[in-house]
């Protein structure tokens, strides 16, 4: 019997069932070897990227470095069809 999920602003995610404890132990062992993610820094170059895009009726590709010479506002958001 499926329960009706309470819908919030983040996309509801699935995941594995019943293996959580095992996975935590494994992760703890690996922690010394895990790569530390570098914090984004102001005053430093923005990481260049290329990604698929939808723009005014067309599917295209956008690369950040194409916008050199212009001011760019890069906005991330959780999901289409969510609420905010």
């Amino acid at each position: 019997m499926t329960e009706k999920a309470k819908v919030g602003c983040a996309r509801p995610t699935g995941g594995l069932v019943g293996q959580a404890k095992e996975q935590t132990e494994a992760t703890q062992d690996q922690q010394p070897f895990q790569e530390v993610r570098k914090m984004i820094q102001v005053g430093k170059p923005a990481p260049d990227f290329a990604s698929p895009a939808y723009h005014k009726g067309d599917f295209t590709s956008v690369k950040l470095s194409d916008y050199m010479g212009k001011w760019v506002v890069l906005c991330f958001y959780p999901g289409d069809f969510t609420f905010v």
Partner: protein
Amino acid sequence: MSVDSVFVHKMWNDCELAKMVKGGIPFPMLSDSGGKVGSAYGIYDEDAGVENRGRFIIDPEGIIHAYEVLTPPVGRRVDETLRQIQAYQHVRKTNGGEATPSGWRPGKPVLKPGPDLVGNVWKVWKTSMEND
């Protein structure tokens, strides 16, 4: 940019956003399935599988000057983003000769950093200037 595919972007634009904004969204809607770009920018939430509400201001040389990150339930304030861009453009135009104080908007007094101003900011800027 979100983790949604370009197909969902198209449908969201055509079905809903075009009803809010005449002609639909004028700038590219980017797709970051798997959150690789979001991770590089430090705002991808791996557990939830979505990007947090990050917003980055990047100058014409590709340097990040400001960013703001919010968790999903709360929206941004657009005129603050515009204000920040205008402030950075002013600083850039004056080659850093002028800085913008708290609450600055175009037309309001700026600060000229230098030895003379040290300890004397109170003479040229009042806290009441923070507000419009």
